[in-house]
Every structure is written in structure tokens, then in C-alpha cells.
């Protein structure tokens, strides 16, 4: 009887079609994040699905405004807090974290997961750390939100983590303020803060963009080492394919709020199937390339998220928009299709065309 009641109760409120349990540690299904504005509905993320296992790293790549950060904030549940009186972000779809659906969960339940189960590293550590509180205070706060311990214990934990992320003299630096740290140190402190509760999901939103080139590699190494140590799932969000190449197991390429290509790092780097990915690869500087060769930019500018182009969102910028027969690229939105081995791409071109263009036109120039 009780068993029956339980099953009955859990089925209520969940759409029947989506009632299947998540198979992966993190599973995002058909995520949509829309912002109503006076100019119209901004579809920042429009139907995004992916999954991630513990111990694995997913790289989400795309240019500014492609929906990368909006996605990560959506997973963290940060779109729906603190929107006092303003028009709220509209989220739909499903986000399963460790068997729990987040979008339909109580806000306070999601708050309790934030910082403990899932943590985030932000782009600019200078603005992301509170200027008026010491580094130690901020880490201690992050720990004590989820652990019922006294300040002394929490501070010991903070020192331990600062030490782990490579901050020298952590027992002294714990009392420093963010402005007393260098950029790289601040990001290390930020990483220490995000790891203080051993989160199982770590989201790094452009963690190296605000940093010196020399420091970038150190921070990426640190993230990789820590992931091995903590065994967490990591999402790394970036517009820099170099960063992804360094860290990611899987890569998801976003364009105009949608996924255009999704596959393992090998698949996406060595057999990219979408013209936008080709563009990204072509615009990436490489040390092993002759200096006289010019980078090839992706022409045009990112689409308006209010008026996303009809058909394929990339068609106004795509050099191969006329390859498929008819007007299909301008009228029909391409769905993600499996192109082999779990590698997915949303392009109207035939596999044969894509492979020909890749091997004959694109790959030789890279």
C-alpha cells in the first residue's frame, strides 16, 4: 500500500513521457532558457541536451551569446534566484543531477545543492570575489553553509584547500583580501572555494579568460589534476578551443542557443562535421602553423537571439549553405543527427558532401 502510494506520488507532476530516470550523473534534456524582454523573447538556450558522467569533462564551446554561460547558470539554478520584481527567466526541459530533477525541485532544495553537489568557477575572479571580505572568510562561508562546524574548523579546511591549489603560505594568505592577490592567485582561491565541499559537479565558466597567458596553463593543469583527485564531473565553458583540447573528453559546440555538434574530443577535433566547427578550428591560432598564414575568421556576427534566422541558424554565415539541394537550409531547422559513433551534428549537408569538403577544402588549411 505504502509502496503504491509512493510510486503514485512521485509520478504526479512529472510529464509521463519524461518520467524515465536519468542514466547519467548529469543529464540535461531539451533545456530552454528564455528571457522575456521589451523587444521580444530572447531565446538564449533553445533545446539543449547532453549528459556527463563523473570523472569526465565536457567542454562547451561557442562564441559570445551562444548560450554557454546561460546554460551553466541554468544548471546551477541561478536564473531563478534574486529576480526581484523583474521579468523572470523562463526555463523548461529537465536537468537531472545524480537522479534528482532540478527544474521542478523546490528552490531551497536546489540552493542546498549549490556549492555542495555542484559548484562553479567564474570568469573574472576579481569581480566574482567580494572585495570587502577576506579570502578565508569567503571560503569559510562556502564551507559553513553546508557543514555545521565552528569557524576554526572551517578555517583549517580553507587553509588546507588554499594549500592544495598551490597558494604559498596559505595560513597567512587566508587572511588576505582579494585585491591583495594577483589574478592567477585569485582564480586559485576561487577554485579552492568551489572545491571546499567536494562537489561532484564542477562548472568552470571561462576560468582562464581574465588571466595572463602564462597563468592560463597553470590554472588548466590545476583543474585537470583536481578533477582526477576529486573524481568530479567537470563542465568547462569557453570560446577557446585550445582550452578544450587540453581538458575535455567530450565537446559540445553551441551556436545561437542550440547544439550544432556534439561528440568526443577526438571526433570533434579530427572529424568535425559542422561548418561552424570548421570555422572555429580555422580561426584558432596554432604554434605549429607557419606565421605567414592568416587565420580564417568566421564571417559575419552572431545571430540575434530574438530573431534567430529561419532554417539553420548558421545559414547566413555558412559558406556551404547552398550545398544541400533546394532551399532547405533557409527554411528548415536541422536536427541533431548521429553521424557515427555517437558523434552528432546538426547540418543539412549529406555526410558525403561534408566529408568531401572537410578532407579537400578545410583540413589541408588547418
Amino acid at each position: 500500500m505504502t509502496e503504491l502510494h509512493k510510486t503514485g506520488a512521485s509520478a504526479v507532476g512529472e510529464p509521463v513521457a519524461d518520467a524515465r530516470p536519468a542514466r547519467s550523473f548529469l543529464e540535461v534534456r531539451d533545456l530552454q532558457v528564455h528571457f522575456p524582454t521589451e523587444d521580444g523573447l530572447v531565446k538564449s538556450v533553445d533545446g539543449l541536451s547532453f549528459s556527463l558522467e563523473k570523472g569526465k569533462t565536457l567542454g562547451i564551446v561557442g562564441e559570445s551569446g551562444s548560450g554557454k554561460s546561460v546554460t551553466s547558470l541554468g544548471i546551477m539554478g541561478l536564473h531563478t534566484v534574486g529576480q526581484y520584481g523583474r521579468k523572470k527567466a523562463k526555463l523548461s526541459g529537465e536537468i537531472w543531477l545524480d537522479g534528482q530533477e532540478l527544474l521542478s525541485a523546490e528552490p531551497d532544495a536546489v540552493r542546498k545543492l549549490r556549492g555542495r553537489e555542484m559548484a562553479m568557477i567564474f570568469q573574472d575572479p576579481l569581480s566574482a570575489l567580494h572585495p570587502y571580505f577576506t579570502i578565508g572568510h569567503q571560503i569559510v562561508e562556502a564551507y559553513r553553509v553546508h557543514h555545521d562546524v565552528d569557524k576554526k574548523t572551517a578555517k583549517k579546511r580553507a587553509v588546507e584547500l588554499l594549500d592544495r591549489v598551490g597558494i604559498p603560505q596559505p595560513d597567512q594568505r587566508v587572511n588576505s583580501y582579494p585585491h591583495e592577490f594577483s589574478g592567477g592567485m585569485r582564480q586559485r582561491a576561487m577554485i579552492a572555494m568551489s572545491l571546499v565541499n567536494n562537489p561532484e559537479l564542477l562548472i568552470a565558466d571561462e576560468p582562464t579568460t581574465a588571466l595572463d597567458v602564462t597563468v592560463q596553463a597553470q590554472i588548466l593543469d590545476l583543474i585537470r589534476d583536481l578533477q582526477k583527485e576529486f573524481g568530479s564531473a567537470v563542465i568547462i565553458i569557453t570560446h577557446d578551443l585550445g582550452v578544450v583540447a587540453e581538458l575535455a573528453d567530450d565537446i559540445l559546440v553551441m551556436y545561437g542557443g542550440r547544439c550544432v555538434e556534439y561528440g568526443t574530443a577526438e571526433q570533434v577535433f579530427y572529424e568535425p562535421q559542422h561548418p561552424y566547427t570548421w570555422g572555429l578550428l580555422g580561426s584558432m591560432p596554432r604554434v605549429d602553423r607557419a606565421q605567414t598564414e592568416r587565420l580564417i575568421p568566421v564571417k559575419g556576427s552572431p545571430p540575434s537571439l530574438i530573431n534567430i534566422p529561419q532554417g539553420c541558424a548558421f545559414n547566413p554565415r555558412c559558406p556551404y549553405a547552398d550545398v544541400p539541394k533546394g532551399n532547405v537550409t533557409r527554411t528548415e531547422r536541422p536536427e541533431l543527427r548521429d553521424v557515427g559513433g555517437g558523434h552528432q551534428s546538426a547540418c543539412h549537408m549529406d555526410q558525403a558532401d561534408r566529408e568531401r569538403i572537410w578532407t579537400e577544402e578545410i583540413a589541408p588549411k588547418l
Partner: protein
Amino acid sequence: MLIVVMLAVFGIFFLIPEWTGVDPATMFAGKQSDAAALDGIRQKLGLDDPILVQLFDFFKGILAGRDYVSAGDTIHCSAPCFGYSFKTEQAIWPILADRLPVTLGLAVGAAVIWLVIGLTAGVVSALRRGTVWDRVTMGLALSGVSLPIYFTGLLSLAIFSYGLGLVSNEYTPVEESFPAWFSGMILPWLTLAFLFGAMYARLTRATMLEVMGEDYIRTARAKGVRESVVIRKHAMRSTMTPVITLLGVDLGALMGGAILTETTFSLPGLGQAVLKAISEKDLPLILGVTLITASAVVVANLVVDLLYGVIDPRVRLA
């Protein structure tokens, strides 16, 4: 910095008689005096001494007291000596000392009220942006900023004192009777607090809206900190910085006398004294009040600077 400000004030007040043709001796003696009497007064006040000597004597008077000597007649003015009023021939300092507590009580009492009202209204409006509460509060704030003291003050007097008889319309010194003092001060406080509270509410709302969009607020949320704590701890701390800056300036300026408020409510404070002094060209009294104001502004700014250090660690080294 303190000394520079003081010197500037002095310079101007010694130069004004020169430029405006107001002769202190004539002012002091009255118009029907003869030349000999005027000379005596000049000698007594040291008006013929070089200006630096006069300045020195004035400073000395404030710090150590001074003697006014002429033709065997000596008047001792004990420290702090700001000279004598042209009109009443009373020493200035006792007048100031008498009136300072009134103005201080008015300013501090009103500040407490306007801080509580202004900060609360500002924060809640920011968090409920665009709602009815926000619109009503900001509408009230706009009227608070635009309605002059003599309007709101007289209106409140008419309603609460003369009409309903709830509070006194007279000033009673606090040492005589605390309840009577309180009853007489409550309307001036509220009137002044309405004006300033409105400004503080607008400032707080604008600052709060800006702060709530800061990255470190998002970070605090990402840590799982409760929204109430995010607001009280993370956002309020940053919102306080401009509020405290403004508070320092406002309190300092009010110490020169809230002239309109004191006049409307017949409070015997510095503002009333200086208003009378201006109309009577009673330079020593004007100078005395000005010095009090200048010192108050300087002291208030010093306190603000020190408070910055407490609030914002980034200014501690500078």
C-alpha cells in the same frame, strides 16, 4: 587639511569687513559714537593691527583666551574666546555653547530616523523593483525631496500639534524635562527626516540595484548562501559605502544649523542664531557659527574616512 580649511574661513571673515565697508568698530559702538570712542574700540579689538597679528590673536583667544585692553580698561575673555557680539555685546562662545546642543540633538535624532526609513525603503524598493510598493515608495520619496521644510513642517505642526494636540510645539531643553524635549523634537525630526530619508531611499535603491547585479552576489548565491543572507551581508555591506559618504557631508552641514527647520519650529539652535546674525551683520557671531560648521564638516569627513577603512579593506593602505 583641518588647518587649511580653518585658515580659509578666517581669511574670508577678516577680508569681508574690508570689502563690504562694514566697519566693525562702528558696528560695535553704534552709529552715534564720536571719533574718540571709535578709536578706543579699534584699539581694544586690535583692528588696526596687521592682519596676521589679528589672526594670531583670534587663534590665541580660542585656545588660551585673550584680554581686550584699551586706556587702562581690560576685559578678559576666557578660552575658548570667539570675541563679542556686535549687537548684544555678549561673548560669542556661551551663545554657541547654548545653541549647539539644540542643533546637535536635531541633526542626530533626525539622522537616526532618516537612516532607518531611507535604508529600509531603499532596500525593499530595490528588491521589489517595478512593484506597487516600489512605485509608491519612490513617489513618496520624490515628494519628500521636492517639498520644502517650511511646507511639510508647518503642515505637520498644524495637524499634529495645533490640530490633534499630540505633541508640543515648543522647545524644552532636555535637562529640564526629557518627555517635553522629546515631544517638542519629534516633529522637527520627522520633517527633517522626511526630506533626507527621501534622498537616502533613492540613493540606497539605486546603489542596491547596482550591487545586486555584481558578480560577487552571484558567487555568494552559487555557494548556496541563503538569499536573505546574500542581501543582508553581501549586498548591504557594499550599499553602505555611498550612504556613509553622504551621511558625513549631511551631518556636518546640518551642524551649521538647519536654518529652515529651526525657524519653522522655533528651535533656539545655531541656525536661528546665524539667521539673526546675518540680518544684523553681527560678524563675530557669523564667524563663530561658521567655524563650528567647518569643524563639524571636517570632523564628520574624518569619521567617514575612518569608517571607509572599516568597511572597505581596499582603502586601508591609502
